[in-house]
């Protein structure tokens, strides 16, 4: 345990825990668009900015990937914090003016947002899908395109490798804007324009998972396909 101070409140934080986690446990509201508790923090959206005292000076940092250290002092609600969050939201709104979650976030953080009723689903490059695919599913079918030198990112994009995708849908589940679409119709699932054949449960007959995914689990864990072909509710 380490002793830290968040907004004047002295608390004990678990070693290795982030500022964001501790703040949220204190019910302090910190906005995020690129965070998921089960994934490595990407610190991409910069909306979770807080102030941390370092060498006697207050500095802005992302709370999602900053680990609490003994004696750390944190401000989550200062003018500087608000100003930095508002600017990040304003820039996101400027770039993705029709995306609903961005509009809501911008409004919440004090940016003037038009009243039109629009419901867009742009990719804001939060990278949640990329991380879920790489870290949790461990297939890396999704990666950022145009990386490294020579990159000329007019609109950076997510690259999809259909040969690697197992159709699990983790990317659609974590996507905050609804950009990643997944459709399941009867014995088919369509995701990133790839069509997957679904497995019918050998007990109840309902389609419950893509065949590719079950084969992947079989290969990875050695669990027999006969067992994997039974849906979770029938197991």
């Amino acid at each position, binding site marked *: 345990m380490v002793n830290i101070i968040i907004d004047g409140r002295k608390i004990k934080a678990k070693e290795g825990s982030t500022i964001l986690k501790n703040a949220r446990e204190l019910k302090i509201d910190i906005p995020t668009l690129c965070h998921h508790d089960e994934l*490595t923090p*990407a*610190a*991409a*959206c*910069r*909306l979770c*900015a807080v102030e*941390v005292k*370092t060498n006697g000076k207050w*500095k*802005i*940092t*992302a709370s999602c*990937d*900053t*680990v609490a*250290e003994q004696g750390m002092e944190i401000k989550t609600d200062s003018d*500087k914090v608000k*100003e*930095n969050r508002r*600017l*990040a939201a304003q*820039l*996101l709104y*400027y*770039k993705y003016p029709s995306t609903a979650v961005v509009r809501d976030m911008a409004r919440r953080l004090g940016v003037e947002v038009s009243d039109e009723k629009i419901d867009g689903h742009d990719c*804001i*490059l939060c*990278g949640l899908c*990329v991380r879920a695919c*790489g*870290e949790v599913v461990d297939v*890396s079918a999704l*990666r*950022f395109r*145009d*990386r*490294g*030198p*020579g*990159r*000329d*990112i007019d609109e*950076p994009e997510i690259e999809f490798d259909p040969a690697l995708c197992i159709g699990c849908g983790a990317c659609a589940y974590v996507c905050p804007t609804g950009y990643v679409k997944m459709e399941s119709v009867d014995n088919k699932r369509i995701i990133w324009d790839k069509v997957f054949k679904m497995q019918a449960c050998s007990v109840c007959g309902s389609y419950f998972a893509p065949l590719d995914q079950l084969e992947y689990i079989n290969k990875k864990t050695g669990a027999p396909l006969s067992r994997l072909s039974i849906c979770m509710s029938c197991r």
Partner: protein
Amino acid sequence: MSAVSFSSWNGKIVDNRKGGAKNVAGSVDVELPVENISALAGWNGLVVIDPDADIISLITNYLKEARKLSCGECSVCRLGIDRLLDIFGKMAEGGGSGKDLSEVQQIVKGVSANSRCNFGRSALFPALDAVKYYRSDFMALIKGEKKLKTKEYSSAVTAPCAEACPAGLDIPGYIELIRNYRFEESLDLIRERCILPGVIGRACLHPCEEACVRKDMDESLSIRLLKRAAADYDLKKGGSPLAGPSREKEEKVAVIGSGPAGLAAAYNLRLTGYQVVIYESLPHAGGMAAVGIPDYRLPKNILNHEIDLIRRAGVEIKLNSKIEKLSLKELKKKGYKAIFLAVGAHAGNRIGAEGEDKGYEGLVDGVEFLRNFSLGEKVQPQKKAVIVGGGNAALDCARSCVRLGFNEVDIIYRRSRTEMPASDEEIEAAENEGVKFNFLMTPVKILAKNGRVRGVECVKMELGEPDESGRRRPVPVKGSEFTIDTTMVVPAIGQSPDLPVMTGKDKVEITDWGTIKADPVNYKTNVDGVFAGGDCVTGPATLIEALDMGNKVAGSIDCYLKGEGLSEGISFDGMNTGEQREEGFIAGKAAEKVGLIDVDKRCESFAEVESGYGIHEAVKEAQRCLRCYRLMVWEQAG
């Protein structure tokens, strides 16, 4: 540099303009990367020489380049640059207002404070300085009283780590690709300047890590291991071929020596289309990488694989082809239009002890010892070996002796541990493996009986005044002689080139140090068409330094054969790439650990000690990179 009109470099304002900021006239202490610049925008500010330079055009072009370096993942940097470009674009078309200039300032401050990496934290300062100190230019543009000048702009990018790397690899670039699971592209980028990624990824002394900005915060990035991870990933997938030439050229080039310098030059010449033949005196290619670095640090299969790829790209390597007498006339008769001498430094230096020239059994020079058993010679382990020297070669000998089954392995070094040139990780590993270090002593006499070594007489030393190397000079303590009983003495105090005898009229000039004299920029020797590089020019140096010279020699030979001059390079030597105006807060995060074989197991064989990073460990380590890209965009004068 004196005559500047305006500078905000590193936040220090110098303003020599009429009606400029008051009381800040003066000169700046930064050297620009090329000569005759009229104005420059860089990560650390603006430097304006020509008062008539168009700062708005400059800053707009700077931002366009900055947009390419922004990784695009953290919102504020990419979107902030986009917004600035839109604002400046609107002004160029006669729109905009003074309010936009306040927004520029607000955005720059926000991006600098809240960006994820050091690029975002530092890159936008010149835009802030421009709107602050050239406000009247912007107002004139907004009011339609001024038109932008169209100029040509040049740009350059570097980073502290890339500056420290002898071969100037784009380190943040290949790390970013690994962070994005793009190991194949990462390797392609590494190979552009380092044709032996698996070798260098294992055996490099990594000066880049010394320059890493994280070094003073928590721990440097494990840059060497990340390079190795990219190479290992490729090898696991079967090993991708190297790019070949897009069109063939007829000219033949001979390379003498197949070490890192020879291989790098040969491959890069081949890539340009030349017909390249390497002459190697030993039965194995690789130079010091093959016969100087033991398997536990650099397994032979890694080196052989990378050499094989170079061969498959069309470089011919003639093994067992020692050139005892170098006749340039002869080589030219064979059709070679250029010759690159890269024979290395494979002859051990003398320690200056009595009896070392007697040919005693049990007295074996360090480089020769390493070379012989690398080439398969059996070594009979003995009770005790005494290694003389404090460099990596001495440690390689010592750690090899441990593995060969010697009961006791002693290193004797004439200075103290702090002056040892060997790397800390090598010293630590040797200590863990049971090598005994004896400091402040030097051998004066090799003791022998019936032609066999039976001991070594040493004298104690003390440290005196610093010598030309900056290290304190060891001085013998009178009357402190003593004897160490041993049947084997291995001097390893440095190497010199073992040069072929030159025949014919054209003799290549040799320095007093016994190295080949070559131009430090184009690597030409005094003989037309003959180039030299690597250890045979510098004396024993690192693999990456030799490899870098090989890269450069290839460029120089290409220019020579085309009859062109070598274009002048860009130098950041006069700029401190380590400094930036907003350092932000960087959360501490230790480097990913790498697996090492247990010490007891290690000493039983020559198996590789370090296991390298797997995919996930490499990605995690790559996430620690602060991306300290330093961008500069400038307008050339005239």
